[in-house]
């Protein structure tokens, strides 16, 4: 603990029930002045609920909140801000065409001269704040010119400007490159040094250990324990989170790549807005290997995924799956050529939330025998086959008639995984396969992917989680602004180099193969 003294914040016995679920079952949490206190837990452990209660978005069913020596009830985010609480959400709430300063005063309760805010004074104050905490944002920059990391710092600045003494950061590194994440962790410790108290919500063990003084672990809505960061390690924390021993590192044998199963030649495609999103991608994935595509979100990953799956028009180049040209065909055609697809957006593409587990498991096969015979759906056969998959993939569901939307993220992903792997694919396109999953579900998905690889499937793994790319891939390609800017064997991979390539920085001396790096990246 960094400082002794009276806690700035205490939450006592917080209980919050949702229909069918107790999200917080009597949680105690306290925060000391100048402390970084991490709230660690799997998805659904109750972290975000607890902080939403603190920020006035939910009313607790019971329990008390104390700020210093005063018991408070916080009815709205507005009240929370007035009490000196500030929250930085995962998704930023900024108006893109406005400047930093405009965004910060926007929605402020009655500035004295609303249309004549003395902008020079304001800019000066913002500059001072920004410098004090090392935020390095210019008040007059329009938001759209800023990187994601900078936008996040604007959110922090906004909270500070509104007088926050306690800052709540909800999964702040999930949108950042490794370098940006490091910068953020430095800012967090600086905030604490300057006397602010920080609640840091995360499910990433490494950064929690690096950035915080104390760590409170939640599981199933209860506090498992609060430990000093200095006195614990990843293994112990993972065990607390999950409630059992967890294998953190992926164990895999060397790859034995075979013939090329998926080949992209100079593939080009447009984004939804009609702008070029893929600008000449060439890749080959062989049987029995995992090719990982690393990159910051929004650099063409979604377009690449959809183009390969046959969901997006290819404006140039060609795609060959299992020896057959599937350029500009259809998902049905790519499926026939042996492609299975774990989509990045589970709920938009991967499954129908208001349909049953059985229906989702048989999605592509519903129309063919034995699930449809003489034109009629055979629900008994659908359920029977679904039950087998549920057992084989250990999907935790009350029955195959349960709606998929009622499953946890991990179990919903198991449904998608089970369905796609049951098609006995030759090529597996796995896009963000563990997004939003908790530690044990991630472990499961990773094991399955390695299993498929060892069974000879060619796997293209697209992920914005660099750790995932590093631990699963046999080769790693970095995508930046719709181009592959680097390709390296996983054994020779250097995190810093990959991080720089992800950020579009020029390549430095390293192991990246000169011949595979396009000219523009040099």
């Amino acid at each position, binding site marked *: 603990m960094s400082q002794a003294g009276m806690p700035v914040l205490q939450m006592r016995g917080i209980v919050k029930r949702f229909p*069918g679920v107790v999200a917080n079952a009597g949680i105690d949490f306290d925060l000391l002045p100048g402390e970084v206190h991490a709230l660690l837990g799997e998805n659904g452990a109750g972290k975000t609920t607890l902080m939403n209660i603190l920020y006035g978005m939910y009313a607790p069913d019971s329990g008390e909140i104390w700020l210093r020596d005063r018991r408070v009830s916080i009815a709205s985010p507005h009240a929370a801000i007035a009490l000196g609480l500030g929250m930085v959400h995962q998704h930023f709430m900024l108006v893109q065409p406005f400047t930093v300063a405009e965004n910060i005063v926007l929605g402020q309760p009655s500035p004295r001269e609303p249309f004549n805010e003395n902008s020079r004074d304001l800019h000066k104050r913002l500059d001072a704040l920004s410098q004090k905490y090392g935020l390095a944002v210019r008040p007059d920059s329009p938001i759209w010119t800023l990187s994601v990391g900078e936008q996040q710092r604007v959110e922090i600045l906004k909270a500070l400007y509104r007088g926050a003494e306690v800052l709540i950061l909800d999964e702040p590194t999930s949108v950042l490159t490794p370098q940006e994440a490091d910068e953020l962790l430095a800012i967090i410790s600086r905030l604490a040094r300057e006397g602010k108290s920080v609640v840091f919500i995360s499910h990433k063990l490494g950064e929690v250990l690096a950035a915080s003084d104390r760590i409170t672990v939640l599981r199933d809505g209860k506090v498992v324990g609060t430990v000093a960061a200095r006195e614990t390690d990843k293994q112990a924390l993972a065990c607390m989170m999950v409630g059992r021993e967890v294998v953190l590192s992926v164990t895999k044998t060397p790859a034995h790549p075979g013939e090329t199963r998926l080949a992209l030649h100079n593939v080009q495609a447009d984004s939804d807005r009609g702008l070029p999103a893929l600008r000449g991608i060439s890749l080959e994935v062989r049987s029995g290997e995992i090719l990982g595509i690393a990159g910051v979100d929004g650099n063409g990953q979604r377009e690449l995924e959809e183009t390969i799956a046959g969901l997006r028009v290819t404006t140039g180049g060609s795609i060959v799956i299992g020896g057959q040209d599937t350029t500009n065909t259809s998902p049905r055609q790519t499926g026939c050529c042996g492609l299975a697809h774990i989509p990045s957006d589970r709920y938009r593409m*991967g499954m129908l*939330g208001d349909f049953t587990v059985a229906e989702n498991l048989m999605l592509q096969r519903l129309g063919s025998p034995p699930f449809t015979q003489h034109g009629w759906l055979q629900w008994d056969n659908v359920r029977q086959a679904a039950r087998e998959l549920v057992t084989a993939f250990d999907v935790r569901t009350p029955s195959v008639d349960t709606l998929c939307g009622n499953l946890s993220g991990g179990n919903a992903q198991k449904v998608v995984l089970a369905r796609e792997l049951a098609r006995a694919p030759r090529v597996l396109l796995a896009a963000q396969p563990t997004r939003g999953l908790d530690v044990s579900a991630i472990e499961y998905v990773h094991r399955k992917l390695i299993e498929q690889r060892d069974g000879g499937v060619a796997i293209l793994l697209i992920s914005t989680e660099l750790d995932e790319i590093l631990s699963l891939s046999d080769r790693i390609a970095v995508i930046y602004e719709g181009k592959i800017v680097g390709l390296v064997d996983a054994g020779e991979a250097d995190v810093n180099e990959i991080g720089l390539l992800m950020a579009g920085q020029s390549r430095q001396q390293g192991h990246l193969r000169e011949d595979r790096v396009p000219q523009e990246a040099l």
Partner: protein
Amino acid sequence: MTTAASLPAVAPAARERTRHLLIALGTPLLGTFIGLLIGAIMIVLAGDDPLVIYQTMFLGAFGGGRQLTETILQASPYLLIALGLTAAFRARVWNIGAEGQYYMGALAAGATALLLPGVPGYFMIPIMMVLGAAGGAVWAFIPGILKTRRGINEIISTLMLNYIAILLVQYMARGPLQDPQGFLPQSAQLVNADRLPLLFGSRIHLGVLIAFLFVPIIYLLLWRTPLGFWLRAVGSRASVVRYAGVNVDRMILFAITFSGALAGLAGILAVSGDGFRLKGDISNGYGFDGVLIALLGRMHPVGVMVAAIFFAALTVGAQAMSVVSQLPASLASAIQAVVVLSVLATDAAVHRGRD
């Protein structure tokens, strides 16, 4: 995501289903009751006794064989239109053009009958059925293709096409197809062979039977065939259907065209089951009421059937009311509207309470 998601605590499916069923049945009943209560206030304000009025209306709609027949006859076009719309709405294709499709069905069937006199009934009736359904289908296919090819909102295009269809039929009824012996804007009477055969020695005709037969047909289509599954899946998330390798545009086209065909079929009843002439005003807004009935019946064939009979009963009961009391017939329409609003509002309130 974080809150309700990860705990495997989902209530037992059977109990959940019973609860759902209770809510599904109880909510419209409660809404109807509230609507009738408000209607009672309106009747009191109009200076009459609500109990007497409601009794008159009820007996007028269900009080005997003749009344029941009238209600069933009245319910048939409602039912056909709303069942078609059920299939479309399940796919989230908002066809608001059933009125126009109904008119086009009536026009196609009526014109066929008038242009082909002397063809025997066993031959003529099927031809009228097919062509009437085709008339509605074509009228719905146009906004369908505009939606899938050009992304034009079907709510607007189907609504606009209503007026074209209505005006076209009015033109035909006072122009090319007008009864040469008459002065009214209507065609000559259809010959007996072109009239839908009557059943059970009553006024119930073949069209009524067909309308009610479509209740199980729509149910089977939606829940027992792959086609119906994909229609419902498109309504749930079209992007998932695309991902699964099914042509979403084709599903949308099917949904809207199918609903148009049923509306066209309903149009035949107006010409060949009743009145036996093509008139400029063959609809009392059936196509628009059909939208309400489909929604009121919660887009389930059985619910739609109940809603269609309920709507028909209110209409028929209102006629009885205007005979017995001094109240204007428009009061019945007002009560009808209040009941619909109450049912929908109760529904929304119950759903919000649960979320």
